[in-house]
């Protein structure tokens, strides 16, 4: 006799739900587990948005403290992680506003650019191109490249492709529509690809025939 297997994530409650319940019941050590589970991701997201290490440290602390204080408001209809990410994104944007006094900072910033919507660099990359660089060098290239993206594209790419949120979760977290997330993601991916091509393209292209459209 075959048994009906519950589908993960649908019928079984997410393990975070039990931890959140324990924290609500006064078990602070359960919060310790949640912090350890997500601190790297929150720190990374804060760094991507603020582009400043000290700000990211502050954001990480403030986001976890705020989440702890607001845990009573957590409804459980979204994942704890996406709820936490939303707090961290808001804290990061607030931190940026403080730093750039008088200048509006939002995720809608600089999204009118057409750059990257039509790929221009059509050269193929070397096989495993990242292996041509030392670890530190590669990290610097990746940092510099992603920092050059418009803020509104960068956040979408980080949440969606680096942190693995779904399109729906990214939209919910950022207060954007799903088409807006999709459009930004495509342009973010294409712009990053274009910029990385400078480093990763094959050094010499043998006289291959141009393959036109």
């Amino acid at each position, binding site marked *: 006799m075959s048994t009906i297997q519950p589908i993960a994530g649908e019928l079984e409650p997410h393990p975070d739900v039990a931890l959140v319940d324990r924290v609500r019941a006064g078990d*602070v050590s359960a*919060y*310790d587990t949640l*912090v*350890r589970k997500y*601190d*790297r991701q929150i*720190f*990374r997201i804060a*760094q*991507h948005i603020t582009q400043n290490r000290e700000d*990211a*440290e502050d954001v*990480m*602390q403030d986001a*976890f*403290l705020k989440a*702890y*204080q607001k845990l009573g408001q957590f409804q459980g209809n979204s994942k704890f992680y996406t709820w936490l990410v939303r707090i961290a994104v808001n804290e990061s944007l607030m931190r940026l506003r403080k730093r750039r006094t008088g200048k509006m900072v939002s995720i809608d910033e600089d999204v009118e650019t057409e750059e990257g919507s*039509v*790929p221009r660099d*059509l*050269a*193929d*990359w070397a096989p495993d*191109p*990242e292996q041509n660089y030392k670890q530190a060098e*590669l*990290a610097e290239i*990746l*940092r510099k490249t*992603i920092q050059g993206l418009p803020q509104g594209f960068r956040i979408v*790419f980080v949440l969606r*492709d*680096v942190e693995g949120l779904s399109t729906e979760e990214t939209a919910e977290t950022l207060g954007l529509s799903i088409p807006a997330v*999709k459009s930004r*993601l*495509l342009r973010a*991916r*294409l712009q*990053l*690809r274009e910029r*990385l*091509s400078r480093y*990763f393209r094959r050094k010499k292209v043998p006289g291959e025939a141009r*393959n*036109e*459209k």
Partner: protein
Amino acid sequence: MTCTEFLALLDDLIDDAVTAETRAELQQHLGRCGHCEVILNTTRKTIEIYRSHEIYDLPAGLRERLHAAIMARCKKGC
């Protein structure tokens, strides 16, 4: 299918969110367009590189310090 049409579906193809029918059309285009093949492969690689390389590491010492600060305040009720 033109390159512009291919590009409009690039993300759905990468995210595996296309129907079998659309996938077949996309594959057909790829079979005769080297440029779009390069764009698909290098875009996939772009995502993979960012996913697999830690560019903002949280060093162990800093992690413990931040962690201790957070938990100390939580225990005091923030």
